[in-house]
């Protein structure tokens, strides 16, 4: 097989894996938008907050230590214990659920029936508030996140492809894990929405929240539920991206990678987020490989992802899997 073709296949495979990582972030946006019509600008910061909380709990870090020390003249930073990864993840899930409750109790309950732009603005405020809280709570330093996920080249794929083609493909173990987790997450979400009472209620609210209210479904409960699930998805995305780059404030910028995925896959479709992520991932990587790096000086991925999304948007404004907009005159 010619070298360039092999390289292109390797790039495509890595693009698919990168797409899964983007989709993990996009999923959180979709869940909240689908259930409440809110475009949650804070989704990236939620991933950051969740990852920081996880590392903080794992390392036995005292939350708000700087504030406590400045106020009381103490010098406490750590409790002196370490929490196992699984327990820390469970505790973080509880904290994200508490966050979901607080967000609905103190913000969105007061904004029911407001214009979407007002709700969007509220999430911008929430994003900056949460970033500040994360800073105060856990500090600004970069933290290593280690929940035992493997990283680095997958030797089996490298050896097998080398034996078959004379060129070993690079696939990152972390990306393989992310793919498995994303698949499980989507299956879990689909099963939840299809086979549980709460899931059916969530779908009813997503279809028509006024009708859902009229049959006794609690909008408040559903919103807390969906924000909790989005918080969990943010934690998963935070773990994956945080393992890759360390947990730091730029983690919130991963939301930028989710936007073209949403534009392409639609804001209301969970499979759309996955397929959109895969198309964006492969598209941007192949473009960089074939055109960007050799002819345009490289670094084309960020903008090309948006170009790709715009092209889809022109022909299908609701996204590939979004609900078709029907307005009756």
């Amino acid at each position, binding site marked *: 097989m010619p070298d360039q073709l092999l390289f292109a296949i390797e790039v495509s495979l890595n693009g698919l894996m990168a797409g899964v990582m983007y989709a993990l972030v996009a999923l959180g946006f979709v869940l909240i938008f689908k259930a409440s019509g809110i475009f949650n600008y804070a989704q990236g910061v939620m991933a950051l907050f969740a990852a920081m909380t996880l590392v903080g709990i794992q390392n036995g870090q005292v939350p708000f230590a700087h504030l406590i020390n400045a106020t009381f003249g103490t010098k406490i930073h750590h409790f002196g214990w370490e929490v196992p990864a699984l327990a820390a993840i469970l505790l973080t899930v509880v904290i994200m659920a508490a966050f979901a409750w607080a967000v609905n109790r103190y913000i969105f309950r007061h904004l029911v029936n407001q214009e979407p732009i007002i709700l969007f603005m509220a999430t911008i405020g929430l994003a900056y508030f949460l970033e500040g809280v994360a800073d105060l709570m856990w500090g600004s330093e970069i933290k*290593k996140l280690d929940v035992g996920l493997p*990283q680095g080249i997958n030797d089996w794929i490298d050896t097998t492809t080398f034996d078959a083609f004379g060129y070993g493909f690079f696939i990152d173990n972390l990306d393989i894990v992310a793919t498995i987790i994303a698949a499980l997450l989507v299956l879990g979400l689909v099963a939840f929405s299809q086979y549980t009472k709460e899931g059916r209620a969530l779908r009813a609210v997503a279809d028509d929240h006024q009708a859902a209210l009229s049959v006794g479904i609690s909008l408040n409960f559903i919103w807390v539920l969906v924000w909790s699930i989005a918080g969990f998805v943010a934690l998963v995305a935070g773990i994956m991206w945080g393992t890759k*780059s*360390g947990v730091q404030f*730029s983690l919130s910028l991963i939301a930028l990678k989710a936007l073209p995925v949403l534009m392409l896959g639609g804001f209301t479709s969970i499979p759309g987020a996955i397929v959109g992520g895969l198309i964006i991932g492969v598209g941007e*990587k192949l473009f960089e490989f074939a055109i960007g790096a050799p002819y345009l000086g*490289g670094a084309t991925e960020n903008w090309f992802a948006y170009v790709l999304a715009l092209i889809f948007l022109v022909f299908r404004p609701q996204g590939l899997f979004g609900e078709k907009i029907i307005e009756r005159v």
Partner: protein
Amino acid sequence: MKLGTLTIAAICAAAPAMADLVYPSLSYRTGPYAAGGIPFADGYADYFTLLNERDGGIGGVMTRVLECETGYNTEKGVECYESTKGEGALVYQPLSTGITYQLIPKTAADGIPLHTMGYGRTSAANGSIFNNVFNYPANYWDGASIAVNHLLEENGGDLSGKTIALVYHNSAYGKEPIRTLEELSEKHGFDLSLLAVDHPGQEQKSQWLQIRRERPDYVVMWGWGVMNQVAIQEAANIRFPMENFIGNWWAGSENDVLPVGEAANGYKSLAMHNVGTDFPIYADLNQYVIDAGKAAGNGDQVGTVLYNRGFYAAMLAAEATKKAQEIHGVADITPAMMRDGMEALVVDEALMESLGMPNFGPAFSVSCENHGGSGQAKVQQWDAAAGEWNIITDWIDSDRAVIDPLIAEDSGAYAAENNITPVCG
């Protein structure tokens, strides 16, 4: 009543109020780059606190660090400048190449010196054109040349036939070394491969797949923030030999290697100053600042690479202040006097020894023609097991034969664009 008024007026005239010596610190303790901004800001502030607590300031005048949060954002940086310059600011340390470019014309108009240590506009080293800007002890082009000189040393002085890949932040900052490396590539016969990484640099799979395919002998990195950690992780993922991977001095702090863990072992970077706390001055710092509870921030950054950089930058500002006081014979100096002090600064080993910072930075002197210092740096290497950087070379010179003409060309173009007549002497 009249007598009283006259008496007060006479006292004021005879002994003018000794205002503070003001050093604005355009810091970034928030935002995506906070992890890099905090230690520098802490080091900068702690040095001046030490001078106040131990020596009663500089020349009998207390120092005051005026911190303003930029979030590493150029617009906010300019706002910080505008809001602090009226406080008697002696010298600005913008800590951002973007902010530096905005402040160069402003500080020139306001007559306030700018110190851009290892960043900013490289050709500002030509003091005859950039009268108010100083970028000692080394600049980006020095950095690129020092990296190549280190590789030359490792290869017995011959890099012909070798390939060096530059992985760079796709910004004005990241592109700074390209021209120098291109010139050096021609001179030494190595192939140069350029790989741009888009901001912020969280996703670099394409670049590292390309490196894996092309197998360059060395990778040089011009990165900042999350780009550094991801690059080092990706290099480890493709099993690129870490000892052949060299970052510039903004890609060589604990922040860049700790998140990668053991896999970062052996990674190298340039160092414009020494590492650790094994210097006599740190005993004073502990006694007068840290243990006294007067440290900036959490007080937990002492001895980290970027803390030492802030500390070193403050030391250079303080020594320039002393020089200005000496030249003008007054303790309460103005920004114009500070500029004179910076231009006459001589940092030699005897001075650093007397400050309790032996061999902390390179020995250099500043002149009107050369605002860039000695253009030297060392190479440091990360020991993951010990969790520390080790200096592995002596001070390495940059290739003046290549860099000086580039500085002359670029600063000349700036002078022509802005109708500046070079002045020295």
